[in-house]
C-alpha cells in the first residue's frame, strides 16, 4: 500500500501531545528557580530537597508497603477468581461472581472509596474492628479494586490456555492440585507477573480511594502530592515525577526487551 502524509503527521503530533508535558516536567525538575516555568540554570537541589522531606519519604514508604501487600493479595484472590470463572463452568452464583468482580472496573473511585469508608466506620461501631483507619484499611480497599484487574488479565490468559495440557497431566497421574502447580501456574506465570505489576501500579497511583479510607497520619504518596500540587507548582514534585518516570521507563524497556526475546519461540508454538 502506498502511504500518505496524513498518518505519519497525526501520529507524530499525537506522540508530541503525549510526551511534551512529561518532557517539560523532567526538564524543569533540574531548574534552579522555584518558578518551575522559567529556566534559570541547571541544579539538582530539588532532588536534595525531596530526599530531605520526611513527609514525602514517609508517604512514599507507606505507599510502597500498601502497593506491595495489596498487589500480592489481589494477585492471589484475582487468580483464584479467574480460575473459578474459567475452569468451573457451572456453580451457583457464577454470574453474580463474574458481575461483582468486574464491577470495580466501571465503578467510579469516589463511590468505591466512600462505600468502603462507610463500611469501615460501621464495622468499627459494631465489631470494634478495624480500630481507626490507616495501613490496613487502605490495603483492604486497594486489594479489592486491584483484584478486578488481576482477574481480567489472568482470565484472558487462562481462556487461551489449551485445556488438553491440563488433561494430559491428569492423564499421567497428577491430581487437580498438582496439575495447577505443575502445569497451569508455570504457563500463566507471565500473566501473573503483569497482573501483579498492574495491581502494584494502580495501588501506587490511587488518590481518591486512599483519601477516603486513610486515617490521620497515614497519607499515601499521591495524597501528599495532591495537597502540594493543589496549592500550586512545586519543583520537588517535578523531581519526584522524574524519578518515577525514570523507573517506569526502565521497567517498561526491560519488559519489552524480554518480550521481544521470547517472541520467536511463541510464534513457532
Amino acid at each position, binding site marked *: 500500500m502506498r502511504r500518505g502524509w496524513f498518518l505519519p503527521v497525526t501520529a507524530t503530533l499525537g506522540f508530541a501531545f503525549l510526551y511534551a508535558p512529561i518532557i517539560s516536567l523532567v526538564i524543569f525538575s533540574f531548574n534552579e528557580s522555584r518558578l518551575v516555568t522559567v529556566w534559570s540554570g541547571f541544579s539538582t537541589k530539588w532532588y536534595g530537597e525531596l530526599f530531605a522531606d520526611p513527609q514525602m519519604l514517609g508517604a512514599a514508604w507507606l505507599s510502597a508497603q500498601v502497593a506491595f501487600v495489596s498487589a500480592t493479595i489481589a494477585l492471589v484472590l484475582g487468580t483464584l477468581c479467574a480460575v473459578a470463572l474459567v475452569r468451573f463452568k457451572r456453580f451457583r452464583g457464577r454470574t453474580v461472581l463474574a458481575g461483582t468482580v468486574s464491577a470495580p472496573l466501571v465503578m467510579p473511585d469516589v463511590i468505591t472509596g466512600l462505600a468502603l469508608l462507610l463500611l469501615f466506620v460501621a464495622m468499627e461501631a459494631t465489631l470494634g474492628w478495624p480500630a481507626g483507619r490507616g495501613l490496613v484499611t487502605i490495603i483492604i480497599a486497594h486489594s479489592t479494586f486491584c483484584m478486578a484487574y488481576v482477574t481480567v488479565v489472568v482470565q484472558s490468559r487462562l481462556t487461551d490456555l*489449551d485445556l*488438553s*495440557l491440563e*488433561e*494430559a*497431566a*491428569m*492423564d*499421567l*497421574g*497428577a*491430581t487437580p492440585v*498438582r496439575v495447577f502447580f*505443575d*502445569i497451569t501456574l*508455570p*504457563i500463566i506465570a507471565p500473566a501473573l507477573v503483569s497482573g501483579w505489576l498492574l495491581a502494584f501500579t494502580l495501588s501506587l497511583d490511587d488518590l481518591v480511594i486512599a483519601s477516603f479510607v486513610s486515617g490521620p497520619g497515614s497519607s499515601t504518596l499521591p495524597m501528599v502530592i495532591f495537597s502540594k500540587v493543589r496549592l500550586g507548582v512545586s519543583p520537588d514534585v517535578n523531581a519526584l515525577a522524574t524519578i518515577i518516570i525514570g523507573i517506569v521507563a526502565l521497567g517498561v524497556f526491560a519488559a519489552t526487551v524480554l518480550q521481544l526475546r521470547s517472541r520467536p*519461540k511463541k510464534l*513457532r*508454538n
Partner: protein
Amino acid sequence: MAKKPQLAIDTRPWRDPAAKPFVRIRNVTKKFGDVHAVHDVSLDIYKSELFCLLGGSGSGKSTLLRMLAGFEEPTAGTIEIDGQDMTHVAPYNRPVNMMFQSYALFPHMNVEQNIAYGLKRDHLPKGEIADRVAELLSLVKLSDYGKRKPHQLSGGQRQRVALARALAKRPKLLLLDEPLGALDKKLREETQFELVKIQETLGVTFIVVTHDQEEAMSLATRIGVMNQGEIAMIGEPTDIYEFPNSRFVAGFIGSVNMAEGVVIEDEPDHVRIRSAELGCDIYVDHGVDCAPDQILWWAVRPEKIHLSREAPDNPHDANVTRGLVEEISYLGDMSVYQVLLDSGKRLRVTQTNTVRGNPDSITWDEPVYCTWGGNAGSVLTV
C-alpha cells in the same frame, strides 16, 4: 502403506465367543444438555488389539475416547477395563494413558521432563525414571533430543514425544486421538508404519480415534464405525469394506454404487432383485434375509464391475446393463470411468491399467456393457 498385523484366524479373540474382553463398554450414553453425544454404545475390545473408532465430526468418537480416559463421565452405562469398573474413576487413577490430538506437550518442560512427568507422579526412583526415559527416547528415535523444548521440535518429532510420554507409564491401554492428524501426508504414511510396529512390539492395546478411513483401514485390527453417537458397524477392515451392514457404512468407507430394487425371487440359494435404476435384474448367488416384494438396496464397489464392448455371457439374464462412457479419469494405476446407463443412472467403475499405454482401452462416448458377479455387491436393508 503400513503393514497390518497379520494374525492367524485362531489368534483373533473377537472371533472366539469364550474370549474375555479387555475393555468392556456397556450401554454407555453421554448427554451434553439435551444432545446425545454418545447413545447406548456397547463395545468389547480385546488385549493387544489396535482398535480404530472411525467417524465424521460429531459422531461421538472423541467423546467415547474421553470417557475411556476419564475426562467425561458417562450419563449412563459402565466402562470396565481389565475386569475393573472404571466408570467413575478419576483420570489420574486409571491405568490408561492418552495421546492428544494437539499432543499437549508441556511447553515449559523439555522432552525428557515431558516423558518423565507421569513417572514422577508415580514416585519412581530417580535412576529408574532416567533409565525409562532413555529407553523411550530410543524407542521413538529421539535420543539426541532429550534436552530440547517442544517448540524446538518439528511436527513429527513432537508427535513421537507425545507417544513416548503416553507410553512411559506402561499403560494397559493407550488411547490415541487422531494421532496422525496434524502430520502431512508423506510423514503420516511413515509414522503409521512406526506406530503399528511399536504397538506390536509392546503388545499394548491401542484405541485410535480417526476420521481418516484410509488410516483406519491400514492400522486397525478392527474398526468401529460411528455415526451420530451410535456404533454403525464393528468389524475387521475387510468386513467393513466388502460386507457393509448398512447404506451408511457402505457410503462412508470408500466409494460405492448404490441402487434401489425390489425382491422378485427369494430362494435359499439365490435372490433376484429387479432394479429399475440399473435397468436390469441383480442376481445374488446366495441367500439373503429378505421377503418377496421388499424394497432394498444393492451396493457395489467400483472395482467389482467389469466393462466390455461385447455383450458378455448372461446365464441368469441378470447382472448386465448397458451404458455410454461419459467421463474417464486416468489415475495411472487405474482409470475411473463414469458410465451413463440407458436408465439414466451413472455408475462409477474402476479398471486396473494392466497393459502399458493400451491403445485398445475403452474411451469416451463408447457404448459399453457393465457386468458383475453374483457375489460382487452387498444387499442392504437399512
